[in-house]
């Protein structure tokens, strides 16, 4: 047993199997380097070689970082975790579009963008999400706590553990449930804010307002939810929405603009009903 395949070693870092031999794309990376919030930051140029078209974009950055570590340089900091497009950690501005949407040909997260979308010799600009509400922590990593605070301001249904009625006691039309699901797939990556010319978080907020407002369970808090979440998003310093649609186009989960309309509908209704933000 345990016939270790000769040569198929991906442990040592030296690929000897012909199938795993370098595929040899050479790329010029212009990466935003910023030591911390106080640093001004600048674009720094790096060269990477032997980039396989099958690598993901983040694996390409891993290659760069391994090189930088061994050269005793500071590796490039970027957020990432699941690398399968669902945790929402990763998010880079690639050649001027969020998650490299301009290059990918379809909705994607940065981790699901593969190097086969690039050509040998390409220059790639890599920047962090830029918004006042997303201060840079270091290099390409930003603080997206503002999005959590928007959820805190009302993005929930108050259902303390143990209080729930039997699940089938309230029927939900499949149409509503499906629409709620579509909105609920938002992964909170912040690409909408990054792509928006106004740096608005409207699509994020709208996705949650829509998701919860489409359920019977979400009705009691519906008015307060929307006014409080909108107030919080303004407080965080996000821009206003002018319905341009860059957000939805950049969204890895394809959250639709109709959610923004639904939010506005709820907001007008709530204001008419006299709902006002908490603080």
């Amino acid at each position, binding site marked *: *047993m*345990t016939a*270790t*395949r000769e040569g*198929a*070693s*991906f*442990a*040592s870092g030296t690929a000897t199997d012909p199938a*795993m031999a370098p595929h040899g794309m050479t790329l010029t990376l212009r990466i935003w380097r910023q*030591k911390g919030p106080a640093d001004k930051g600048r674009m720094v140029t790096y060269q990477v070689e032997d980039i*396989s*078209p*099958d690598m*993901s974009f*983040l*694996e390409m950055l891993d*290659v760069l*970082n*391994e090189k930088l*570590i061994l050269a005793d340089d*500071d*590796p490039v*900091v970027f*957020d990432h*975790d*699941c690398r*399968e497009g*669902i*945790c*929402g950690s990763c998010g880079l501005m690639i050649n001027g579009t969020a998650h490299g949407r301009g290059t990918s040909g379809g909705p994607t997260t940065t981790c*699901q963008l*593969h190097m086969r979308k690039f050509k040998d010799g390409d220059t790639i600009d890599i920047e962090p999400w830029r918004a006042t509400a997303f201060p840079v*922590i270091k290099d390409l990593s930003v603080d*997206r*706590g503002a999005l*959590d605070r928007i959820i*805190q301001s009302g*993005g929930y*249904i108050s*259902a*303390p*553990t*143990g209080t*729930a*009625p039997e*699940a*089938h006691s*309230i*029927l939900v*039309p*499949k149409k509503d*449930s499906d629409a709620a699901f579509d909105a*609920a*797939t938002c*992964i*909170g990556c912040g690409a909408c804010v990054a792509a928006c010319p106004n740096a608005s978080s409207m699509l994020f907020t709208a996705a949650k307002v829509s998701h*919860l407002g489409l*359920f019977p*369970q979400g009705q009691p808090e519906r008015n307060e939810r929307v006014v409080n979440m909108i107030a919080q998003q303004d407080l965080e310093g996000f821009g206003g929405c002018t319905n341009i649609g860059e957000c939805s186009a950049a969204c890895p989960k394809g959250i639709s603009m109709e959610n923004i309309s639904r939010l506005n509908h709820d907001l007008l209704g709530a204001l008419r009903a006299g709902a006002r933000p908490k603080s």
Partner: protein
Amino acid sequence: MPLDLFTVGDPIADTKAPVDVPIGERWSTRRFRARLVNPANRRKLTVIVVGTGLAGGSAAATLGEAGYKVKNFWFHDSPRRAHSVAAQGGINAAKNYRNDGDSVHRLFYDTVKGGDFRSRENNVHRLAEVSVNIIDQCVAQGVPFAREYGGLLDNRSFGGAQVSRTFYARGQTGQQLLYGAYQALERQMAAGTVEQFARHEMLDLIIVDGRARGIVARNLITGEVSTHFADAVVLATGGYSNVFYLSTNAKGSNATAIWRAHKRGAYFANPCYTQIHPTCIPVKGDYQSKLTLMSESLRNDGRVWVPKERGDERDPRDIPEDERDYYLERIYPAFGNLVPRDIASRQAKNVCDEGRGVGPGGLGVYLDFGDAMKRLGRPAIEAKYGNLFDMYAQITGEDPYETPMRIYPAVHYTMGGLWVDYDLQSTIPGMFVIGEANFSDHGANRLGASALMQGLADGYFVLPNTINDYLADGPFEKVDDGHPAVAEALQDVQGRVQKLLSINGNRTPASFHRELGRLMWDLCGMERSDEGLRKALDRIPEIRQEFWTNLKVSGDQDTINPTLEHAGRVADFIDLAELMCIDALHRNESCGGHFRAESQTPEGEALRDDENFAYVAAWEWTPEGAPPVLHREDLEYEYVHLAQRSYK
């Protein structure tokens, strides 16, 4: 068994489950017997919860709602990033909405049997009981489960279950359940009952006078190492599949919190129990950083095969039928391509070891939809599997409608974890362990759609009803950094961080991690043998030695430094890997997800050894140099009778 690898200590037993009453009454009896904490006293009690996944998030929210002062720690930027978010399939619950004969008892029975008789009956029964409450709870929170046109919740059969008890939200069930818990958690943060510590990594457990009283955590942004105190500590830090480097876990998933707790005295149970998922996208090259799982449902219509000849490098479409080996259909005519995960995985490894694997490095087998496309037509296949096919195409750049998919097994769940009793308390008083981080419910093999169930059961319903029995003795005497035990833990952590930064060698943490992972995959993966495990146990100390003398971490400690974080995690993985190999070596039987070469039937199938191994192996850490101590918890089966699996 040689005494140099481990020693045998006293047996251990769960003393909390009220075994004097029938199994169906044990959970309610335990809740009744557990001491309560007066609501007015709860706000004087602090509980630290580490982790924000299904277990941690639901526990922190629920304890906050109950009125305890909760301090919640996680290493991501947001609680919503916890890796529970990636679970695709679904969540089981014994609702019997389909009137197809399901019941709490049947879910209990299936889970014990599925765990290959290596789990604790009492815990599993309770899990089945609370499963129904979980669905109610999640629906009330607005989790968008799939529904039928009549507005009722939809159910499906999952992982070969004969009843339809799996609730799901398209292929993103984990995400939706997690967001339910996350929103409940954020609500408590806004209410001020849960204090948040984002981007904080737990690096040690503080024990004062025999009780878990706090943690040492590093702020990943400022690098500041600080102490945090509480009356109880709850670990909900997930599994340790990343010991294999390549797994379906997130890059950040790690074993550091449970491993440090283990070193402080918590027993580690069944570390060698890992689950390997047969349908993942294969490795492409040495740069590969993670593996992606595809739903097992693909095996419903796809046929698994490899060429009959070794080294056949033709395009799969050019290989004629009679030169293909549909090995699962050949070996298991009754179940064919639908054999359980462990068998599908092991046979894939076998054919690759024979040199008949396909794709880069020969580490893959074909999953062919050619017949299904002919039989059902492309539109039907698109409707059923469209999203999976798209995902495959995006990652591999190949069109699975045109050419067979290539799949290979990957580690994706660890059944082992810290030992806990019926109250989910570890061997350290005041330290509770929930979710994948504990060992409690899945035995040697986890059924599909049961991980989400366990995480939420522990967090919403079990822990909040058992931790009170411990906290009833609190609040405990105040501690601070001046206490010698605290100062020692703090110094330990600081020293370790300094050490990692000062080695200044020639290899990156990732390079060590890859090497360790490959070793574990080869020698402590799907199939283990005495010889192989001993080889691994020879090699691991060498890797450790090199790690601590030739590691290179650049950058500073007083800023965000992912390389430093990774280095610390790899150091713990190396130690954990050794314990896993010892556990695997001592367990000379094939059971659940593991095949032991020395324990097989004449036909080459897994052979369990109930005579000698019907126990939980709970390992006690001993100071550096001394071998770990094995404490056995005997497993008794009162309600589900021991039987050998057969899929022929």
